[in-house]
């Protein structure tokens, strides 16, 4: 099968469209299609989902005919670190509070760089945490606990 796909970028993008389009149509079946006269909540999503699936199908078929460049290597390490840092921030901000969640975000995120140095990253984490505490929490009043519920904050 891999030998038949001549344009992997088009092929995978097409598959994504196709899957999302079909999912949209299937989910919209519960929403009530209505009629053109009185469009139900499912009318527009169904039309769009079908259109997206059609575009996906065209892309997939085209990928079998027209050659294209290979997909470059994915920078998985960088993706995972940046996303994990973001997710951990979300998970920690309520419970542990800003003074824990923010350094975790900065250090884990900064670790994705090839130029990562502990000393610089620690200084950056400290600086950004102090800045955020002062500007966002104290000055702008964003309701984020400095120390979270886990510490009785």
């Amino acid at each position: 099968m891999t030998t038949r796909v001549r344009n992997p970028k088009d092929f995978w993008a097409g598959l994504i469209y196709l899957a999302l389009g079909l999912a949209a149509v299937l989910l919209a079946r519960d929403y009530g299609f209505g009629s053109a006269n009185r469009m139900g909540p499912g009318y527009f999503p169904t039309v769009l989902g079908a259109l997206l699936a059609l575009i996906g199908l065209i892309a997939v078929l085209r990928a079998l005919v027209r050659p294209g460049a290979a997909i470059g290597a994915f920078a998985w390490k960088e993706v995972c670190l940046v996303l994990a840092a973001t997710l951990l921030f979300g998970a920690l901000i309520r419970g542990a509070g800003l003074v824990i969640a923010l350094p975790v975000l900065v250090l884990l995120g900064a670790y994705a760089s090839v130029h990562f140095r502990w000393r610089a990253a620690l200084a950056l984490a400290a600086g950004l945490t102090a800045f955020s505490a002062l500007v966002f929490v104290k000055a702008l009043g964003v309701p984020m606990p400095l120390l979270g519920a886990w510490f009785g904050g």
Partner: protein
Amino acid sequence: MDILANLGLGLETALGLTNLLYCLLGVFLGTAIGVLPGLGPVATIAMLLPATFGLPPVSALIMLAGIYYGAQYGGSTTAILVNLPGESSSVVTALDGYQMARKGHAGKALATAAIGSFAAGTVATLLIAFFAPPLAEVALKFGPAEYFSLMVLGLVASIVLAHGSLLHAIGMIVLGLLLGLVGTDVNSGLARYTFDRPELADGINFVIVAMGMFGLGEIVRNLEHEESRTLLLRHVSGLLPSREDLGRIVAPIVRGTVLGSLLGILPGGGAMLASFSAYAIEKKVSKNAAQFGQGAIEGVAAPESANNAGAQTSFIPMLTLGIPSNPVMALMIGALIIQGIQPGPSVMTEQPALFWGIVASMWVGNLFLLVLNLPLIGLWVRMIMVPYQLLYPAILVFCAIGVFSLNNSAFDVGLMALFGLAGYVFAKLDCEPAPLLLGFILGPMMEEYLRRALLLSRGDPSVLVTRPISAVMLALALVALCLVLSPALRRKREEAFAEEE
């Protein structure tokens, strides 16, 4: 129609102390962030949007507009000094600007960019003042059918003028339209695509989409090939162009301004296409064509005027029709909606101070840029030298806190991470995220207008083609689609973006 009185009202609004300060803050932040390579205007505005929610609408929009054209200007500074475009519309400025800097004319190149931008900004502001009111008047007569067709035309035009694969541009728009439908349906109260998550009941906030796809997505893409920057020079001298230089740049500035203003109005156009085309045209008509690529001052003047003119005139469809012509304008529309203002032609009549205040503030902001930036060049040079490994964790912090503060919701932060992943994967597959954002903003509006149009016509879809204005717009959209599929135009389109590679 009294343009002078309107501009007077605008100046009165824009020159009020508060708004003056927000305008200054906007252009300052915009320039600072535009200077930083690897942080585009969309991510910047998305990042700073939550900070403007608490401001009055006029001040918020004035500040956001300032960030936008400030970022255009800052991008060219980086392009000239380090040959790295701070953002996409200054790619072509780097071609000749950097060569000028290498020959010791950095100051002259920077001054040319500043003068060109200011001249173009002044003309574009006047154009908005003259052309927006009649356009809004026409738009006030639009019914739902016309609006629906107008949005179709807008989206199609943005495909035609966007770069990259057409099929993927359409795919991303439709995906964006679908994502825009997530949440409670306004008519039936039914929750759609929410997977029983209460956090999704009000729909996905556009800030989350923009920050995820443009903020986080850009970070990962930049980390993929991290490079170290070499700054050409620390001290910039010889800022003022000679009389002879001024003579050489007048015509390119005029041509760039005209072209940029026209392209800015078109959906999907905006600053980037303007600067690319202005450079290409200047290269053809200039007497010094041979010098292009080796430090021709005309090669800086034309694209810089064009991108600033385009950035400004792209406000025309946004302010008068409520239609975004590029992702930045999509964010502006989102900001208006959050401020409780329904974008569209009625903004001008119902909120004249807001409308004219923004228009006037653009001119004031351009003046700020001209006066402030050349003296501040030393500061910008220091900012360029901030290494990326110290910069992007700060971007992460701003994105995370910004998104969290929208609803105090950790769920939103996770959703942003998901959009970051999607943005990266789509970029890997050569699918541009910009059309998705346009579709995302327009999705709910398109559904609403289509629903109303069909309700009024008792379910007869031919209403879209029997009403003349609507029919013309759909026909134009069809023609545009056919044209772009024709081989001849396809080649031209690829040529226009060829300089980028």
